[in-house]
């Protein structure tokens, strides 16, 4: 698309583009140089602030445990959210109003409110109402499951609805019961179609674990913004390093998702189009 927006430049156009490119590049470099000067002026390039990242111990004892907590919170939340999504997604398609309506209400409710207030509620409500101690891990997982589970429920519903009606009709005609139609005919096809959307939602879930920082969950962001600065007074460098770790993880998982999608598209036997991922704006 980008190439149809402008003509192939002629000799004067090429010259003008070169000059403009030079101007933009110079402006960019000037901006970077300004940031560099400011970092330097504030002593943010001091070796003492960056040297900790060269020590194996710092990684083993301070950073990796945070990373492990982030990944385990994401894994546990995903393991619960996916079944949650399937149960509620299918329930919304039920023929019985008393199943369909409450399921729809739950899904719509948790999709419409911020994840953070669910986490706060889990933290305070658990002890105030039930007398339970809710660890920050539990609170984070609770919020992630309800929010992402509800988004996944919508993906599941869309996946099943994207199948041609003829599939259900034919299955019923050959004598399958409703449960069998869902299990044997609809779900296997729908799962293929919604796999990419599910995976991209799980990436969002992984990113959202960073909200745990606000409730003092000992995650990767906590390691970068609290634990490392407490030891080395290097808030800015630590946050930058942790950001790079997050970006690497998300890019790798994203590539994995793309590969999965290509693979499933290759082996797909139906002509069903993949379900479009919902607006996957990470909250965390």
């Amino acid at each position: 698309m980008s190439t149809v927006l402008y003509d192939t430049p002629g000799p004067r156009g090429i010259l003008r583009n070169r000059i403009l490119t030079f101007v933009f590049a110079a402006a960019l470099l000037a901006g970077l140089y300004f940031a560099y000067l400011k970092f330097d002026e504030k002593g943010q390039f001091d070796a003492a602030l960056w040297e900790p990242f060269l020590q194996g111990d710092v990684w083993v004892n301070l950073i990796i445990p945070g990373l492990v907590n982030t990944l385990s919170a994401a894994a546990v939340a995903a393991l619960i959210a996916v079944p949650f999504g399937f149960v509620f997604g299918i329930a919304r398609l039920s023929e019985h109003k008393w199943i369909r309506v409450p399921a729809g209400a739950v899904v719509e409710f948790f999709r419409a409110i911020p994840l953070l207030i669910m986490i706060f509620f889990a933290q305070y409500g658990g002890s105030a109402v039930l007398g339970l101690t809710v660890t920050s891990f539990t609170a984070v997982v609770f919020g992630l499951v309800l929010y992402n589970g509800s988004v996944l429920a919508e993906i599941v519903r869309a996946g099943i609805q994207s199948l041609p009606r003829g599939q259900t009709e034919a299955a019923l005609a050959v004598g399958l019961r409703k449960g069998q139609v869902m299990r044997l005919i609809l779900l296997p096809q729908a799962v293929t179609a919604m796999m990419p959307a599910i995976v991209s939602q799980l990436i969002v879930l992984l990113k959202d674990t960073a909200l745990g920082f606000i409730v003092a969950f000992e995650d990767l962001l906590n390691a970068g913004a609290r634990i490392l600065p407490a030891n080395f007074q290097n808030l800015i460098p630590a946050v930058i390093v942790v950001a790079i770790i997050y970006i690497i993880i998300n890019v790798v998982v994203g590539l994995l998702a793309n590969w999965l999608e290509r693979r499933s598209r290759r082996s797909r036997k139906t002509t069903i189009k993949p379900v479009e991922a919902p607006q996957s704006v990470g909250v965390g």
Partner: protein
Amino acid sequence: MGALVEEFPVILGAFWLTVRLTLASAVAALVLGTVLAAMRVSPFAVLRGVATAYVNTLRNTPLTLVIVFCGLGLGLVLDVSFSESLSTNYLWLSIIGLSAYTAAFVCEAIRSGINTVPVGQAEAARALGLTFTQNLRFIVLPQAFRAIIAPLGSLLIALTKNTTVAAAIGVAEASLTMKSLFERHQDSVVAIFFGFALAFLVLTLPTGLFFGWLSRRLKVAR
């Protein structure tokens, strides 16, 4: 229930802050996102590269981290300061964080909108002799925007909910206020939670309906 009535002015103030935070960030994100999208389809490799790098970085960083970095980093390193009043200063820093993050998603939405505009439109515009800027301004972007009203609406809803993350740097918007009300009224945690949830529903549901209506109304007939 009593706690909700008693604290009503506090809650109202908190949500008013949430609304202002949302609107200011939305405007900034829309402007920045449009500029980024224009950069990504521009004839200049440098601009395309910068915009692509920006979008990929911001989209893969957790929002909490972006806000913490803006809240602490911009002031500490770049001497960014908006106001002598601390709460106003952190409010603006969180707006920067929220809009910088959301702009990456706006940029992607606009790009997908540009892709819905038939190639013939841009070609016809070029045949008439329009330059790149004119082409974008008069032909492509107006149609692209009308095609992405619904996704922009979802982004606005997501942004409304995301303003809660400003709590990370102590901006007393709705979620942080809810937390302090939890501490003050430990016997009515459930009522307070549902009160705040309801208020968020009031903010987000009409937004969704309005943008759905708008996108149907402004749909480009093809």
